[in-house]
């Protein structure tokens, strides 16, 4: 039986189709049902389309003011919640006046009852004027629809057009109200679509080289981008645009000038790579930089495209020499430990094989909040016989699988982290990381170290009071020698 219904989900038997247990002989089409509407009241961990658009795609851009057209909640929740650091350096060599501007400020229309009745367009116009006055240095203003503005039917596109002409500054509207689509994934695709249609092809880069790439779907979580950029620089590849980590508004406009689009987060941003290929003929490559093996392979593939393989070999050798010995230590400590990966999307398949092959761990299951079929195909391919592949697992199912599968570590988000602890199990933040970056060589070492410190924290041996004897706590450092 390739599909499993958790005991806790017996009252909602629809959940069975979403919970696949890998059986190697299964036909390819045997996959968990995904990207479909959530069962109401099922304790989902999913978010909304607004979170997907502003939270994931555009919130990483450094020189843009974001106006959330909403009652105050969505604005408050869009404020500085994701670890997307930005620098002040602009591609033309100029300096943007505020570091981490994207984390530091959020703007909203704070809609009131009267706005809901009479419409909020006037308030939106005024908010745009206020924003331009308050932050005259921003290079664009982005507007976000929310449930309220979607329902009352405010025409944000027309406001954006009108105000853009008035201010002489790009103003872009994102119509991804919270209720759109089954998950935040809908917001990713709307974000891609709007940025492609309205920006790509509208600007020219200050300079180009024969080695230009667009790095797509790299949002600089905890500094991931800065690591990757070092590798590319050493190889001789120029990151002409990033979509959208530490990038500026203008960079999106010249993505079509790259020689190659490199797609890092395949779920949230393959859309724009495809559209750029179709319209401008720039080929794209889906890549994978988590772990030493994937990072090495993919750097080589990209380098090969530019005939720079030797340089890539050097980068790889240099980094492996740097991290290899310490990684060996963690492998020794992590071997045999059972992990469950509950990521938003692609990290579930990026990490499954590396955890097993490079760190000797056992991946008991993978799951995702918002992946689509193509992502689940990869998850299924990359886990072992008997491992679970779950779409949208809910809190109760998480509890049951911890109990049934003897899990040593759950990798998830902050919403799951503390529940997992209450079950007596270590956790690791995999969306925004504990002490990242987690990408590339050094990042994989950070990840291994964080998994090690989570699992081996002495606290897990001290959970319960022992009336008669002291607990036997192994000295982990000694043992590793």
């Amino acid at each position: 039986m390739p599909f499993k219904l958790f005991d806790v989900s017996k009252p909602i038997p629809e959940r069975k189709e979403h919970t696949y247990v890998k059986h190697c002989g299964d036909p390819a089409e045997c996959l968990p049902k995904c990207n479909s509407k959530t069962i109401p009241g099922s304790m989902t961990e999913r978010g909304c389309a607004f979170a997907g658009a502003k939270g994931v795609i555009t919130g990483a851009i450094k020189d843009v003011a974001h106006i959330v057209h909403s009652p105050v909640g969505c604005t408050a929740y869009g404020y500085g919640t994701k670890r997307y650091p930005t620098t002040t350096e602009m591609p033309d060599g100029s300096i943007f006046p505020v570091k981490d501007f994207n984390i530091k400020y959020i703007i909203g229309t704070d809609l009131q009852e009267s706005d809901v009745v009479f419409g909020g367009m006037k308030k939106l116009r005024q908010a745009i004027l206020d924003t331009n006055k308050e932050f005259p240095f921003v290079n664009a203003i982005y507007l976000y629809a929310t449930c309220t503005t979607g329902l009352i039917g405010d025409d944000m596109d027309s406001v954006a057009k009108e105000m853009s002409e008035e201010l002489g500054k790009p103003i872009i509207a994102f119509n991804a109200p919270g209720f759109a689509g089954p998950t935040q994934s809908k917001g990713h695709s709307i974000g891609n679509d709007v940025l492609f249609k309205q920006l790509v092809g509208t600007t020219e880069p200050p300079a180009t080289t024969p080695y230009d790439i667009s790095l797509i779907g790299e949002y600089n979580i905890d500094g991931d981008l800065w690591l990757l950029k070092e590798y590319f620089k050493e190889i001789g590849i120029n990151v002409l645009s990033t979509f959208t980590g530490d990038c500026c508004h203008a960079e999106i406009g010249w993505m079509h000038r790259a020689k190659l689009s490199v797609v890092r987060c395949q779920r949230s941003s393959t859309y724009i790579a495809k559209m750029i290929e179709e319209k401008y003929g720039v080929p794209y490559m889906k890549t994978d930089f988590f772990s030493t093996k994937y990072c090495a392979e993919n750097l080589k593939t990209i380098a090969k495209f530019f005939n720079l393989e030797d340089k890539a070999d050097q980068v790889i050798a240099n980094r492996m020499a740097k991290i290899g010995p310490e990684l060996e230590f963690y492998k020794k400590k992590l071997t045999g430990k059972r992990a469950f990966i509950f990521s938003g999307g692609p990290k579930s398949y990026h990490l499954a094989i590396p955890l097993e092959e490079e760190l000797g761990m056992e991946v008991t299951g993978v799951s995702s909040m918002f992946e689509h079929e193509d992502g689940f195909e990869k998850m299924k391919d990359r886990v072992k016989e008997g491992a679970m592949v779950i779409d949208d697992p809910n809190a109760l199912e998480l509890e049951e699988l911890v109990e049934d599968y003897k899990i040593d570590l759950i990798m998830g988000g902050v919403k799951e982290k503390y529940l997992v602890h209450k079950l007596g199990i270590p956790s690791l933040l995999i969306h925004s990381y504990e002490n990242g970056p987690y990408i590339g060589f050094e990042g994989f070492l950070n990840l291994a170290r964080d998994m090690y410190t989570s699992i081996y924290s002495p606290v897990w041996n001290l959970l319960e009071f022992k009336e008669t004897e002291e607990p036997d706590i192994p000295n982990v450092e000694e043992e590793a020698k």
Partner: protein
Amino acid sequence: MGVNIIKKDRTATINPLKTCQPLGAMWAVTGIRRAMPLVHGSQGCSAFVRYCFSRHFREPSEIAVTSLHEDAAVFGGRKNLVEGLQNVAVRLKPDIIGVITTCSSEIIGDDVIGFIKTAREELKGKIGEEAVEKMKIIPISTPSFVETHLKGYDNAIKALADHVAEPSQPNEKINIIPGMVNPGDIREIKHILRLMDLESIILTDISDPFDAPLRPSKTELKPYYPKGGTTVDEIADSANSVGTISLTKYAGSGALSLEKKYNVPAELGPIPIGIQNTDQFLRNLKKLTGQDIPDSILDERGLLIDSMADVASRYLFDKTVAIYGDPEITSGIARFVGELGMEPKMVLTGSKSDEFVKDIEKVAKETGAEIDTLVDQDLRAMEVYLKDNPVDLMIGGSDARLTAKEYDIPLVRVGYPVYDRVGYHRRPIVGYNGGIQLIDLITNTVLEKYYEPEHWKLQQ
């Protein structure tokens, strides 16, 4: 001397110092034993709030959502709510479900009360009539586009008073509505009540649910319910209490409802922060319960007074302070820093409130200070203000940490949210003990910042 109101000079809100109603209602429902908040809205409405709660308390925050999508926007959310209620009832078997509306379900105009009725009928076939009768399902209307999170909290407590409270035998207990304060604050209030030998009903008690022990052998699992919280029976019994004290006038509707319907006398605020406000809280307790104030409490008062005598004039006098946050906490702290001889130079709240201005007027009168007062404003307004009007100290939540860093002003963290440091949810700021915590925190912050570590002044 007096209050100098600084008016908002723009329409846009930049870095809000408030959020929308549903968060307050989710907070209130979490304080009930085996309760499940069910948010009738989009998934972001629950996901973001859970994120915020978990970030602040470092605790699980289990909240259900009806997952409204496009079809509900067109045809209404009946199916989602009826199905959602049943799934929550059958799988999580809570004692009580709080159905919390959002902007979308309010705009769509869903008949929440009618849908709950339908769901209850259909549930009878699934879990039996008796179980359905026992399970409370409470509608809590929290339109996001009206007022703030505090109103959502107030609406939730009022819904409990209206739908759960039930008169029977007088019980000699005192009801306490804590408002949106931290677990440490509620524990301090309970400590005071214990010293006074009073039994109480806390409406509602998040102290354990949002600061729960990690003890797998003693934890209720599948589904996880945190330890503690006020039981449904206790809430029902609140109609029989000798009185209700709401620690905040911004969450008084439930108290007034109990007073009107069941003659339970109500006292609203002030929050017991500092000497005079805590004194008033004790007088209110005495007035409503007839219980004397024991020496043990007055000794604790004496410890705070002792600390104030020891350090306030020497280290704190005339230091200027900017205070921001929820109105009751902000005005309470303003009064306390006044008692310490400091100068509350600027106060800021995100709520629209005349009461807040009145409270600050009182502080201005007591301190002789001119207090720049920003009402219904945001954190950007404070950033702009501080640029021209520097202060020695900021007191408030984590959201202004970057402003504090920008101007190199030390920040004393209080209230919600505090996510860039640990333990603040556990430490009280209310009661005399909370005052001691605060004075230590403020004084040590001043010493860190304004005294050279090697200076002879620190020698004794």
